[in-house]
């Protein structure tokens, strides 16, 4: 094994933060929906996947240069994600609001299966190349060279998070969302149209999933119908580690997850890195059940 040098470490860190940024976006969307609806959106990964496919299909119609194409693609992804999210909420989740939680989860699972295989049917089950016109090349950061695109992904994720925080803290909509997440009954009694708020949260959360989908497609260069499952597991994991209901926690966990993954793969073992991460997850849950940043819940047993 080569010695650990600064350039190598920087390279790894940047790579970890890039994929971590994707995980953070997925987790953020998942956590937002979960916070408001209290149900795990098991089809979240499929929103991510569908948006990536739809954007891929639209790419030939967007023959713009470098950065403009990227910006447009991002906006398109957010828009498509929000639309799909609204549809999912209206068709799958809203009719099951009074039903047991498990019913909504299973319904989402059904949707997830249907969407995955629909994508395979429409576009084909093989890997599809995803290439943007933007090739920002490599940056020199001291002694290290890092791919600029990875930095872009990280920055985009942070920007979207910052934007969300702004909305949540400074706008009426944001306040309404936070109120509904914290206490839906009281929120309703205070005159908040919780049904609309839930839809809004779904739209925003799914928009982020869509953005994550195109970012990861550009990062790895491929889109494929089963890409949503891994995203869901990572998003769910990051949400729980961060503390259910805590959006900043979800983002930080997502980033940490990405970095840990790369470091474990490089220095411990590429085969065992996932298993180690899951073991660490169990450790976190056992020692700090409310997650890293979640509110402490009194343990009774």
């Amino acid at each position: 094994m080569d010695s650990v040098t600064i350039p190598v470490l920087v390279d790894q860190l940047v790579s970890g933060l890039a994929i971590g940024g994707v995980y953070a976006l997925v987790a953020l969307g998942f956590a937002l929906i979960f916070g408001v609806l209290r149900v795990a959106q098991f089809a979240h990964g499929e929103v991510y996947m569908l948006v990536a496919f739809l954007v891929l299909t639209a790419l030939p119609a967007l023959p713009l240069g470098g950065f403009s194409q990227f910006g447009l693609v991002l906006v398109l992804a957010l828009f498509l994600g929000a639309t799909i999210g609204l549809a999912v909420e209206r068709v799958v989740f809203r009719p099951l609001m009074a039903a047991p939680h498990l019913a909504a989860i299973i319904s989402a699972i059904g949707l997830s299966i249907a969407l995955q295989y629909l994508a395979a049917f429409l576009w084909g089950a093989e890997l599809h190349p995803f290439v943007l016109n933007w090739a920002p090349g490599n940056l020199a950061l001291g002694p290290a060279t890092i791919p600029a695109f990875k930095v872009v992904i990280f920055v985009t994720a942070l920007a979207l998070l910052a934007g969300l925080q702004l909305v949540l803290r400074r706008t009426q909509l944001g306040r309404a969302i936070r109120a509904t997440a914290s206490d839906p009954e009281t929120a309703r009694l205070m005159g908040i149209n919780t049904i609309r708020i839930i839809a809004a949260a779904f739209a925003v959360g799914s928009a982020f999933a869509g953005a994550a989908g195109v970012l990861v497609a550009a990062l790895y260069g491929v889109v494929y119908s089963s890409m949503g499952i891994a995203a869901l597991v990572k998003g769910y994991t990051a949400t729980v580690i961060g503390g259910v209901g805590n959006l900043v926690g979800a983002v930080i966990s997502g980033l940490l997850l990405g970095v840990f993954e790369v470091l474990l793969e490089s220095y411990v073992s590429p085969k065992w890195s996932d298993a180690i991460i899951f073991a660490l997850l169990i450790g976190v849950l056992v020692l700090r059940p409310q997650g890293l940043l979640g509110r402490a819940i009194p343990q009774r047993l």
Partner: protein
Amino acid sequence: MNIVRSRLLALVLAAAFILVGCDIGGLAGAGGDQIKIAVVGPMSGDAATYGQDFVRGAQMAAEKINAAGGVDGKEIVIEQFDDRNDTTETANIAQRIGSDSSILASMGHFTSSTVYAAMPIYKANRLPLVVISASDPKITQQGNEWVFRVSPTNDLGAQATADLLVQQLGLTRIATFYLNTDFGKSEHQYFVERVQQNGGTIVLDEPYQPDTKDFTSGIIKLKNAGAEAVYLSSYYNDAALLIKQAVASGVQTRWFASAAIISNQFPEVGGEAVEGVITARVAQGENWEAVAAEYRQKYGAEPTPFVIYAYAATQAIAEAARQGGATRDGIRQGLEAIENLDTAIGPLSFDQNRQAIYTEFEFLIVQDGQFKPWTP
């Protein structure tokens, strides 16, 4: 349990069984004038191209043979099965095929892993299997007399490439990546041994799991390994992704890979990054070219080698049925007796392990999105 629920339950179960019963009625037995051959492979999922080529190759051969009168008047019928490139599904499918007495021979199972999963089941059912892609040499060294192989083993191509790199191109610092499966591990081992025999050095030895899409950590190691060339024991998807991601990360080196990358998907997924990738494969004679031309005309695309192997396997099974009789045992015996049979791969002979004998290799390079012949 109350009345409503038990009635509902009875209704539901009855409906389920009626539905399944109707569906099952569709399974017909085969007539005695047919020689049914099962072609198994990934018919869905991201390796579906291979399965499709298996079927196409077999069907092209079957049509030709049937047009010339079949096997003593009997028609060859190809029935396809999807093993989804999944070892568990393979075991299920193999059992299903094994217990269908109208099927007299089977060919396929794309990977070495799926072949290993299926082998004991074919033996238990006394059904001959002709391997047309899986390349781990040990498959035919297990002493299972029901398993034959018409495609080449991976040691030959790996060794030919190792010789090319060290002896002819003078590249001695070589990095390797390999798929952590029977195929990848086996091919990698032969490559490494030969390189070291030739005096070269392996500077990086990276296994990766199937389904890996993110090669970041391996690529970072590669950047710092100081390699003059990289050899991939991979399939087309992972090889294309790895190379694409490496090039995007700034890696500059010469890329070589196993013959499994030869497909239309490789240049498609890899794009510009895979221009210049070199691979070794068995030399193709006139028969091969003839079948390839037929395929091109019929399907408007380049055939993968597996079309040819499936074609040859069908020819071999037909001949075996002619010689040994149209039964499972007869076909097995007939296959063993084959000597210099004129097939799509040229003259086919099996060695004492029922492995087809290959002697010559040639190289291909990716140019303008296609595989073209190349000499050093």
